[in-house]
């Protein structure tokens, strides 16, 4: 991946134009930054999924139906 490709990949992950100063980073550094951002997004998705399941177990049975309804809305 070229430096420009790595910058574009970052732009597409962030859905925003990264600051110009990032142009001073090497290809390897930009790839590492891309990877760190990707990992953070995936980790958040996994934690959200796991937390939702764990939380559901603590909710009184009577309220589970209405909660599920809101979550599926």
């Amino acid at each position, binding site marked *: 991946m070229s430096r420009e490709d790595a910058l574009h990949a970052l732009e597409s*992950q*962030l*859905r*925003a134009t*990264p*600051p*110009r*100063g*990032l142009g*001073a*980073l*090497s290809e390897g*550094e930009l790839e*590492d*930054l891309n990877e*760190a*951002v990707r*990992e*953070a*997004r995936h*980790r*958040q*998705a996994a*934690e*959200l999924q796991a*937390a*939702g399941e*764990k*939380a559901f177990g*603590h*909710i009184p049975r009577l*309220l589970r139906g*209405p*909660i599920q309804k*809101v*979550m599926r*809305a």
Partner: protein
Amino acid sequence: MSEALRSRAEVMKLARLLRREPDQLAYLGRLAPEDLRVLREQVTDMLFEAHDGTLRRLAAASRLLPVGLVAMLGQHAFGAMLSARISGLLDPARAVDIAAKMPPDFLADIAVELDPRRASDVIARMPAERIAEITRELMRRGECVTMGRFVGHLGNVALRSSVAEIDDATLLRTAFVLEDRDRIDALADLVGEDRIARLADVAEREGLWPEALDLLMNLDRERVAEGLARMEPERRELVERQAREQGVELPTIASEGAA
């Protein structure tokens, strides 16, 4: 020097957001702090918006549950990171009620993960005593970067309580990494002359001269003069010498010294 330290503080904030060690992102330290701040805000926005729908539904669902249960779920199921993501989506008054049921150490965990821009209304409504408790915990952990992100969102009463909680070295470190630099005036107003007089000792002992000079330059000139006048002559000379060495112009000190 200041620029490099500010970049380092920004790398620390970004590393925390990405769950990496600051050393792993050390290569970013050569970028300008303004660029790193923009990048961090872009990453923050991306992470919040990536699961915005789910987070909003969770916030809506939480309205069906009693406050105590939401607090328990926040602490034991969602954890600090997700609680921080959701907190800005809750009704601020209810969020404060939920926070009242959580222990200060967990609220400090949330503070570390929180984007204060998105929970500004919640932070502003938190009672000053609660803010002081969280500040105490953050200071115990050495979380100056986190405290620096919050100052711009605290009301004057809460800010006063926080400043009263922190020691001089923490005050210098926090003021230096303030996210909202405009707020340094409010912070500086809360620093009394006695405290100004102690700053040289702290700066010398902890190696915090750039931080001390940065704060002094933002204080009212007359109050700086008064603080300096309370110093022993050798301490005052030390401040003047450090200011010269750091290339910082402190006209108040020069005029006081000449008087």
